C-alpha cells in the first residue's frame, strides 16, 4: 500500500527537473498568464485584421486593374480620336508590338470601400481573341460578343462581384452607375490572371456619345511593358494624349493611400503603446505579488541577471504564445470573412497577407521591452533580506 502511495506521489522527472522553466510557470499560473496573453491576442487580432482589410485596397486595385500590366492606354485630349501626331509617335516606337484602336464604356464593381469604375473594352471581332491572349484570359462559359451586339463578356470575378449570370443585363438605361442607352447582356464568362471585360467596339461607337477612340499599346512581353510605358511617357506630348500605365496606377494608388496608411500607422502605434504600458503595469503588479519568490531565489544565490532573464523568458514565452495565437486567430477570422463574405461577393481579401502581420510584431516586442524596463529596476533595487524579514 505504502509502495503504491509512494509511486503515485512521485512526479515525472521531466516536469520536476526544471521547476523554473517559463513554460511550467505559464501553465501553472494560467489565472495570471492567460488574461495577459489574451490581451496580446486581441491586440494582434485587432491590428492584423484591420491592416489586412486596409491592405486589400491595394490588392483590389492592383488585381482589378491588373490588366494594365500588359498594355498602356492612350486617351485623346483634344478630340474624339488620338491626335495623328501622337499616333505616329506610338507607331514609330520599336517596342510597340500590338496596337489597337478601341472604344470603351464603363460599369462598376463593388468593393468594401465603395463602388469602383470598371472598363469594358470595345474591340473588333478580330481584336478580341488577341486582347484575351495578351491579358492571359480565356472564355470559360458562353461566348464573346458579336459585332455591333449589345452584349459583353466579363471575368468570373466581376460576374460574382455583381451577382450576374449569363443572360443578365449588365448595363442599361436605368442603371445609374452602369449606364448604356440600350440594355447590354452578359453573354460570356472569362477567367484568367486578371479581371477583364470586353464588348463590341461597333456597339460602343454607335451608342455612346461622343464616340471616343483610344489606343491600346502592348510591348512584345509583359517584362518590356514598363520600358515601353516609360519611353512613350517621355516621347508623347501630354497636351495631345493622356497615358494610363500600370506604373502610374501604382504611383497614384500609393499616393492616395499614403494618408490612410499614415493614420493606420498612428493608430497601430497608439494601440501598441497603450498595450505595452498596460502590460508593463501588469508585469509590475505581478512582480510585486511575486516579490517573496524573487527575494527567496536571490537569497539562495540567483543573481539579479538570472532573475531578470527569468522574467524576460517568462514574458517572452507569454507574448510569443499570445502573438502566435493572435496571428492564427486573425487568419481564422479573415479566412471566415473571405469565404463567407468576400468570396461570394467577388471582393478581394488575402487572409495570409504576411505584410499585414508584420504590423503586429511591435506588440510583443513593446510588451517585452516595457515589462523588462518596469521590472528590471525593481529587481535591481530589491534587497532580499528586507523582503525575507518582512514576508518570507
Amino acid at each position, binding site marked *: 500500500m505504502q509502495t503504491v*502511495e*509512494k509511486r*503515485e*506521489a*512521485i*512526479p515525472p*522527472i521531466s*516536469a*520536476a*527537473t*526544471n*521547476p*523554473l522553466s517559463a513554460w*511550467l*510557470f505559464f501553465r*501553472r*499560473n494560467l489565472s495570471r498568464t492567460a488574461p495577459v496573453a489574451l490581451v496580446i491576442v486581441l491586440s494582434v487580432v485587432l491590428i492584423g485584421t484591420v491592416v489586412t482589410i486596409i491592405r486589400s485596397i491595394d490588392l483590389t486595385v492592383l488585381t482589378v486593374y491588373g490588366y494594365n500590366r500588359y498594355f498602356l492606354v492612350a486617351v485623346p485630349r483634344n478630340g474624339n480620336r488620338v491626335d495623328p501626331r501622337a499616333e505616329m509617335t506610338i507607331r514609330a516606337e520599336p517596342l510597340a508590338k500590338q496596337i489597337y484602336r478601341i472604344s470603351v464604356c464603363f460599369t462598376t464593381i463593388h468593393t468594401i470601400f465603395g463602388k469602383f469604375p470598371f472598363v469594358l473594352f470595345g474591340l473588333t471581332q478580330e481584336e478580341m481573341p488577341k486582347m484575351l491572349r495578351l491579358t492571359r484570359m480565356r472564355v470559360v462559359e458562353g461566348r464573346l460578343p458579336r459585332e455591333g451586339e449589345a452584349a459583353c463578356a466579363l471575368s468570373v470575378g466581376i460576374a460574382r462581384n455583381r451577382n450576374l449570370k449569363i443572360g443578365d443585363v449588365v448595363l442599361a438605361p436605368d442603371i445609374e452607375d452602369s449606364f448604356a442607352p440600350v440594355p447590354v447582356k452578359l453573354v460570356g464568362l472569362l477567367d484568367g490572371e486578371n479581371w477583364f471585360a470586353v464588348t463590341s467596339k461597333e456597339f460602343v461607337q454607335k451608342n455612346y456619345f461622343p464616340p471616343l477612340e483610344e489606343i491600346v499599346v502592348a510591348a512584345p512581353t509583359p517584362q518590356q511593358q514598363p520600358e515601353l510605358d516609360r519611353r512613350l511617357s517621355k516621347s508623347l506630348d501630354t497636351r495631345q494624349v493622356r497615358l494610363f500605365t500600370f506604373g502610374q496606377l501604382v504611383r497614384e494608388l500609393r499616393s492616395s493611400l499614403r494618408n490612410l496608411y499614415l493614420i493606420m500607422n498612428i493608430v497601430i502605434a497608439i494601440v501598441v503603446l497603450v498595450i505595452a504600458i498596460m502590460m508593463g503595469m501588469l508585469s509590475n503588479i505581478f512582480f510585486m505579488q511575486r516579490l*517573496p*519568490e524573487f527575494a*527567496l*531565489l536571490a*537569497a*539562495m*544565490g*540567483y*543573481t539579479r541577471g538570472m532573475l531578470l532573464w527569468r522574467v524576460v523568458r517568462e514574458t517572452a514565452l507569454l507574448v510569443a504564445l499570445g502573438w502566435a495565437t493572435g496571428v492564427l486567430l486573425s487568419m481564422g477570422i479573415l479566412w471566415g470573412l473571405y469565404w463567407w463574405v468576400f468570396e461570394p461577393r467577388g471582393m478581394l481579401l488575402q487572409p495570409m497577407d504576411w505584410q499585414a502581420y508584420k504590423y503586429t510584431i511591435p506588440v510583443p516586442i513593446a510588451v517585452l521591452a516595457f515589462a523588462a524596463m518596469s521590472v528590471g529596476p525593481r529587481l535591481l533595487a530589491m534587497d*532580499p*533580506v528586507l523582503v*525575507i*524579514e518582512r*514576508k*518570507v
Partner: protein
Amino acid sequence: MLFTDEVTLAYREADRVVLAVDRVSVEVKQGEFIGIMGPSGSGKSSLLYLMSGLKLPTGGEVRYRNRVIHLLSERERMRLRRREFGFVFQQPYLLPYLTALENVLVAVPGDREAYGRALELFEQLGLLHLANRYPHKLSGGERQRVCVVRAMVHQPQIIFADEPTASLDHINGHAVIRLLADYRQKGAVVVVTHDPEMIADADRVYSLRDGRLVQPVRV
C-alpha cells in the same frame, strides 16, 4: 571553515548610527552544529546574514575557506550562496505554483542527479507522500521540512537557518531541528533561535545581546 573576525554591521537610523552587529568573532567548523541565541533585536539574524553573505559587513570580515566574502564579486558571492550554502528562513516560503519536490529542485534546476537525491531525502524524512503536493496542501511543519530538504538537496557545506522553528509548534519544531542537527555528518549547520531548547544538541552556542557577543560561549 568559516569565521568572522570582529565583524560589524552598522546602519543609520534617523540621525544616529545603530550597530546591529558589533565586532563579533565566531567560528564554524566542518561537521559542527552551531547555535546563535539572543533576545529579539540582539542582532543574531544580522550576524547570520553577514556569515552567509546576504549582507556585507561595515567593519571586520567574514572568511570562508580563506576567502573574504565581502571582497568577492557579486557573482562569486551568489555562486557561493547557490552552491556551498543552504538557507532555511523563519517563514517556510515555498513557490505556490510548484509541488513540494519541484520546490526542492529550485535549488538545483536542471540537475537530474539532484532529482534522485531529493527523492532520497524525501524518503529519509518520511515526506515522500508529500512530494507531489502543492504548498497550500501542506501544514506549516511539513512546509518547513520541505524547506529544510531544499536547503540540503545541493549538499551545501553550511546550512544557515534563521529561526526555523519560530512559526512551528513544539513537535514540528523539534522535528525540523533534528533534521538540521543530523546534517552535521555532511556539513556544518548554523541555527539562529531564541529558544534554548532547540539548540540543546548544539556543538557550540553563541549568545548575542545588543549586537555584541555575550561571554562565555557555551561549548
